[in-house]
């Protein structure tokens, strides 16, 4: 059982996302994260879903996804060399003084940016893979994380291989 990142090319039509997520829930698969957006092909979107399961289960998910009429292509990025990123915004309690300085130090180690500063808090923006963001959030907890927002993972294959419609 390990996380698989599925890259799904779909028709950009109403209801496609609910067809995809509905399939996951009724077949008993858990979505760990989800990201949707437009892509290089007009009229299509790309959905990136992280799902945890053994290889047989993932194969069945992919086959079931392929049966949906509005789905054009499904790939498991996990089988290949890839780049995966997510972005998080973290609002941390930061009174003026030592704690604020410490937070800024932690941020620079993680190459996070301070994108907003308030009287009693700061907002950090960080980009990285899931573990990096988890690690930063854990570290910041001692100062008080007031709010934590993250996008789903997105991923892309390394090299010239692509997840596109093919010929």
């Amino acid at each position, binding site marked *: 059982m390990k996380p698989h990142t599925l890259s799904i090319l*779909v*028709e950009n039509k*109403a*209801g496609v996302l*609910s*067809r995809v997520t*509905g*399939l996951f829930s*009724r077949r008993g698969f858990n979505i760990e994260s989800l990201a949707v957006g437009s892509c290089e092909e007009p009229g299509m979107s790309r959905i990136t879903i992280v799902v945890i399961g053994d290889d*047989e289960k993932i*194969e*069945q998910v992919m*086959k*079931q996804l*392929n*049966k*949906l*009429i*509005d*789905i*054009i292509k499904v790939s498991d990025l996990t089988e290949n060399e890839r780049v995966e990123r997510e972005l998080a915004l973290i609002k941390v309690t930061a009174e003026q003084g030592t704690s604020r300085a410490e937070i800024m130090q932690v941020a620079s180690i993680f190459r996070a940016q301070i994108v907003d500063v308030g009287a009693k808090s700061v907002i950090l923006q960080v980009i990285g893979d899931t573990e990096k963001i988890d690690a930063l959030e854990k570290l910041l907890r001692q100062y008080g994380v007031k709010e934590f927002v993250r996008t789903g993972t997105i991923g892309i294959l390394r090299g010239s291989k692509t997840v596109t*419609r093919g010929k």
Partner: protein
Amino acid sequence: MKTGAKILVESLQREGVEIIFGYPGGVVLPIYDELYDSSLRHILVRHEQAAAHAADGYARASGRVGVCLATSGPGACNLVTGIATAYMDSVPLVALTGQVPTNLLGNDAFQESDITGITMPITKHNYLVKDTADLGRVVKEAFYIAGTGRPGPVLIDIPKDVSTKVIKEPPVPEKVILRGYNPTYRGHKRQIEKALQLITAAERPVIYAGGGVILSNASVELVDFATQLGIPIATTLMGIGCIPGDHPLNLGMLGMHGTEYANFAITESDVLFSIGVRFDDRVTGKTNTFAPHAKIIHIDIDPAEIGKNKRVDVPVVGDVKAVLQDMLSMLKKNGLKDTWLKKIKHWKQHHPLKCPQDGRLHPQFVIRQMSELLQGDAIIVSEVGQNQMWTAQHYCFKHPRTWITSGGLGTMGYGLPAAMGAHFARPDLPVFDVAGDGSIQMNIQEFGTISHNKIPVKIAILNNRFLGMVRQWQELFYDRRYSFTELPPVEFVKIANAYGIEGVKVESPDGVMSAIRAALDCDGPFVMDFRIEREENVFPMVPAGAAINEMIGGHPK
């Protein structure tokens, strides 16, 4: 310039639709107004569920796409069981529903329900048409999706203003092109070769044939292949009819209520050639003891069925007919497996299905009498439960598409409306609905439809005043605690008479044949109320979760 309703009706005619089963209502008024002087035949049912089942029965008997029509809200929701039934058994269906006008969508308007949302998990695809200009294309796509690849139901939801709007009709594309839908028909050559090698080298091969064989019209190829190599065929409930019941290689049905010899043969097989099947739990019993010594070959048009429930050694993705044709063309003469066939013959002789003969009225006897009189030249539809299993076991089917039953979903109330649909598909054949007294009462209002339209469906009710299959499980596994399974007596002939339908009550074995004859001789519909032994069980039986060779109610080994 045309209204959406006119475009819809013309699109249906372009697809070759000859009959629609439906029920009118508020938001489909524009469509019904268009149907009023159209050449399309419309059958008014008494409940929308029956419209879906009738379209389904029509599709199964004819191999063409069935069509049903209902209004929004309750009308559409009443189709749901029928659509789910068709989805589970891969039946090509186009369900048309009315919807509230687009400006009211999502407003909880009168008779509004989100039917595309509701049917998402039980349709192959569905559409909510928001622009009249899309109607022609959507209908074309819907029929294409429903009838190709692994068939299934497609729903088209049409808001009232989309039906009434007048537009200049845009040209409909000649060919349907869907970027995300390209079914594979031809099997991979190397996989086919591997499969053939395995089968010809086998010592104890068995074919496990299912509904996919019927759907792809591949019965001739299947029987040809099996006969050339001398391989016995066990069929699933949905596969019945793909090989004549009296063919020496036929093992009958396998699984929970399968024949002992089919289940023995599967268990001892060394190669299991699975064709158009899905390794359902009612077939396999405990999956790891199903065909435990066999290498498994699996042909299916749906790649998602391969390896879903059981590991497969040689998968072949493709249309059953195309793959079998390729196999036949590559087949080299090979000796028959004499020892294996002898063993199977021995099992068949010593473990036949039982039909008690003690002077009382047993359901198995009723089915066998029907079989003897009809000689396979009829369409037999069933309800769900004991009536269905006794028919599957004891009726000798000779042709594909003459056995119509709700397999996957197991929908009680399916039989009568499906029989109506089957009649319009094959008016040349008598149509019988084998029912129980429980299931017939789930759609008994359709007596109105068959009477009104003079649909000559013959209804054989195996009346035991129980919800028989559930009672059987209570007897065997719940210490005979018959919790809510006993039904009070009903005089079905009187109900039939009230609708203007003839009928006869039969209480002893001597009355059976004459009742079936009377039904056949009657021009219109006819009801036979067979008062059978009340606590008759369907045997043999594999208890849920057991291995399929561990049957109860069979012969001593």
